[in-house]
Every structure is written in structure tokens, then in C-alpha cells.
């Protein structure tokens, strides 16, 4: 529910026909990756992004991507309320979508029917028949939504004796205890304790926190990593740092540097999550990231040296001729280095070198 993979959370904003709902939906998405916020964080200016997105952006340039005010990774703060809102919104989203579709269907049906009604009795009243059936479905939907939400023992009900709202599960004890609210608290505590005891017996934890779901780590137990000063680090140090984190130590210096850099970004952003993922999961993400970067690099057009020579043979020949013809008076005017260098170092080759 909480920690869906980002691609599942990432539903189409166009799902909503209503423009305002679409805007609300989009306002809960990161302006950088355009997916729902994953560990929403902001810097001094208050603009919010995913923890990973903001960290990556700040690692390139220390400013807010929106307002360009100076921003530092150390000043990043969690936007906890927004995350809670997002979780609630994601729960409400399906209900809203269903409602929207139902109403759209009703409206189109109504249009057809009201057209035929109008043809039969032309003096239909102004209120029109369109509003009522739609609103009854809304009510029905709401009711259904309420009843599904009222699971577990937190359902409130009115006490027939004192007319106060009381948790339904303890209503009998409440009346037995003479409708005393202080008494209710004790009952709740006792029942929770009993429950915990039972669950410990049956090995099923009632509390989510006690045993994190597979793939999640209990929040507050993880520590952030400092960024390495990669420019002055030697390969040996890099390898040691990667080893300490349990990461692969293969590849060139640059590969190791960017691996550690990205790991720090991924890991620190994971610590910022409400329900952090396990170390192994983050490691998998890093692996995937590295693969993607490598495949993207490979996609760059490769220049075949032989082909290039063939293709530009006439140019080269001309240049050679040019230079040879000038040779006798080379002491007077040496060929401009640019003229020679240009075709030898074609744009393609230059861009790859860079």
C-alpha cells in the first residue's frame, strides 16, 4: 500500500476527465521525474521533489531546480505531511475515478433519455431529471467506501446509554463500566495487550512496525552516508569504500567513483523514505542504474575508423596533395595546423573523445 514500486504508482494523469482533479493529481508528482513523490523533500525555498531527484539535481548544481535559489543537500528536509497526503490521495484516487466514470456514464445515458422524454412531454420542469440518479450513485458509492474502510476495531458507534461515540469493539465493556471514558482507554489498552500476546503466541504480529514487511526496513535505524571527496581518492581507497558498503569493486576508476556517488544518493534517499527499502533492494536498484547508464553509453554512434577513412579518402588525398605541393617553400609558409587537423579529427571522433 505504501511502498509500491514507482512504476505502479505512476498512473496516467489523464485518467481524470475533470481538469481540476487532474491538476490535484499532478501537484502530488515530482516536477523532475513526473511520478508521485518518492520520499518528498524540500530545501530552503520550500519547493518539493523526490529525495533521489533533488539529490541528483543538487549533485550537478547546488540550486533549487524551480526557483534557482541556492540549495544544499545538507539543508534538505522531509515533507512528511505531503507524503501522508499522497498516501491518502492514492487511496482515494480509485474511488474518485470510479465516481467520475459512473457520472459520465449516467450523464450520457441521461442525455439520451431526457431527449426522448422531452419529445413525449415537452413541458418537463426546469430542474431536469439529470441530477438525481447521479447523486444517488454518489451516495451509494460513498456508503460502500465507508463500509470498506470500517474494518478493524476502530469503527465508532453511538452508545445507546450516553450517546457518545465509542469504539464498537469495546461497546459492551463501555456500558458495563458505566459509560466512563477513562475506563474505555484502559479497556482499549488491555485488549491491545491481549491481542499482542495472542499474536506472539501464534507468531503473527499485529503491529506493522514490530516486523517490517519483507523488503522494508524499520525506519529510524538507518544512517546516512557522507559523500566521498572523489577527486582526491585513490583507487585503493575507492575499492575499500565500495567494499565497506558491500558493492562490487570492478571497473575503472571513473566507474567506481560514479558507482559510489550514486550509491550514496540512492542510500541516503532511501533513509529519507517513510518505509525504507532493504539494503539488498537498493543494491538491486544501483545495479539496474549502472546497467542502464552503460547501455546508454553503448548506444552512442560508434565511428568505424576504416569506414571513415574510405568515406573521406578524397578529402585526405586532396590535403596530402596540398601539403606536398607546398613542401618546397615550407620554410616560408607552413600549412596552417587547422587545415590539416580538421578532416583528421572529424566531429564524430571529437565527440566520443569528450
Amino acid at each position, binding site marked *: 500500500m505504501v511502498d509500491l514500486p514507482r512504476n505502479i504508482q505512476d498512473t496516467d494523469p489523464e485518467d481524470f476527465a475533470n481538469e481540476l482533479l487532474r491538476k490535484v493529481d499532478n501537484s502530488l508528482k515530482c516536477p*523532475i*521525474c513526473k*511520478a508521485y513523490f518518492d520520499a518528498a523533500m524540500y530545501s530552503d525555498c520550500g519547493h518539493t521533489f523526490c529525495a533521489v531527484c533533488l539529490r541528483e539535481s543538487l549533485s550537478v548544481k547546488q540550486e533549487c531546480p524551480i526557483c534557482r535559489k541556492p540549495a544544499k543537500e545538507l539543508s534538505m528536509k522531509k515533507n512528511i505531511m505531503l507524503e501522508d497526503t499522497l498516501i491518502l490521495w492514492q487511496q482515494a484516487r480509485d474511488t474518485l475515478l470510479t465516481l467520475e466514470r459512473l457520472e459520465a456514464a449516467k450523464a450520457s445515458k441521461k442525455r439520451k433519455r431526457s431527449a426522448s422524454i422531452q419529445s413525449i412531454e415537452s413541458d418537463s420542469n426546469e430542474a431536469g431529471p439529470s441530477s438525481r440518479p447521479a447523486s444517488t450513485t454518489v451516495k451509494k458509492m460513498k456508503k460502500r467506501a465507508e463500509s470498506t474502510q470500517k474494518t478493524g476495531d476502530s469503527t465508532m458507534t453511538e452508545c445507546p446509554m450516553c450517546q457518545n461515540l465509542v469504539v464498537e469493539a469495546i461497546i459492551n465493556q463501555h456500558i458495563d463500566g458505566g459509560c466512563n471514558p477513562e475506563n474505555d482507554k484502559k479497556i482499549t489498552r488491555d485488549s491491545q495487550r491481549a491481542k499482542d500476546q495472542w499474536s506472539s503466541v501464534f507468531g503473527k504480529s499485529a503491529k506493522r512496525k514490530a516486523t517490517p514487511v519483507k523488503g522494508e526496513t524499520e525506519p529510524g535505524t538507518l544512517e546516512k552516508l557522507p559523500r566521498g571527496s572523489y577527486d582526491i581518492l585513490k583507487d585503493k581507497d575507492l575499492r575499500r569504500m565500495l567494499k565497506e558498503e558491500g558493492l562490487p569493486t570492478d571497473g575503472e576508476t571513473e566507474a567506481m567513483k560514479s558507482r559510489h556517488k550514486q550509491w550514496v544518493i540512492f542510500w541516503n534517499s532511501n533513509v529519507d523514505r517513510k518505509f525504507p527499502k532493504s539494503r539488498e533492494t537498493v543494491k538491486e536498484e544501483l545495479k539496474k542504474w549502472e546497467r542502464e547508464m552503460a547501455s*546508454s553509453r553503448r548506444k552512442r554512434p560508434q565511428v568505424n575508423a576504416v569506414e571513415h577513412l574510405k568515406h573521406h579518402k578524397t578529402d585526405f588525398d586532396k590535403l596530402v596533395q596540398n601539403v606536398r605541393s607546398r613542401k618546397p617553400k615550407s620554410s616560408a609558409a607552413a600549412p596552417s595546423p587547422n587545415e590539416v587537423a580538421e578532416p583528421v579529427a572529424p566531429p564524430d571522433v*571529437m*565527440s566520443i573523445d569528450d
Partner: protein
Amino acid sequence: MGSIATRRLAKELRELSLECPTGIKILSANDFHTWRLSIEVMGDSLYQGQVFALQFIFDAQYPIASPEVTFVSDEHYKAPIHPHVYSNGHICASILGTEWSPILSVAAVCVTMQSMLASCKKLERPPDNDRYVRHAPKSPKNTRFVYDDDTV
């Protein structure tokens, strides 16, 4: 291609195919590597009636890294004659270089290019056009531009 890059581009493409800013059309976007869009300057301008094509090349770091944006210069399209556009299509615009921000998008770049053309006062190439074009790297991202004109 990075998964974030792919997903963001998919989203941008969906939004563009639903509603493109005025004067902008998708010419080709068959993958998440290279896109081409046509741009036209609306209203009064020195480029009335002319259609240009912008080429976007994305890497896996998009949108953290800027896309490589150039005006297409081939048998169908010509790069606009503008003090910030070289005849090989390279563009000297800060938002494509040091002032890129990951919240910018393909649509935002297109609109910026439109307004850059719309505000042009005189049809001329950059003063160092010939020299630059002769030695320019293939990708303008490998050029270190100096952004000295704040009026555009």
C-alpha cells in the same frame, strides 16, 4: 536508457500528443533517444511563414542532464538565421547549457526557442559562425558557449 528518463519522456510524449503548444508539432518521436519537432513563430516576426525543425537527443541522465538540442539543417529544413544560431544548427542558449534545469521539458525548450526567434531584430548569423562551424564538435553539448546577450 534510464528508467526515469524513459518514463519521463513517455509522459512528455503523451502530453505533447494530447496538446502541443501553438506552432509546435511532433515530426518524429519513435524512440526515447531522438525526437524531432517542427516549430513556427506565431504572430509578427522576421520568420513569418518559415518552419524550422528542432532535434532533441536524450541520454540516460535526462532530465538531470540537458538534452542535446539543435536546429535541423538538411535538404528539408534550414537552421534559422539568428545571432544565436549557427549555420550547422547549433544553438547558443543558456538553458541548453549551464542554465538547464531538470524541471524544463521538451515543450519548454520549444517555447523558449520560439520566443528567442520571435524577439529577433535582425537576420544575421553569429559573428564567429564560420570559424565555429568549421571546428564545432558534433554535439553542441561539447561546446563551451559564452552567454553574453541577456536581451533574448
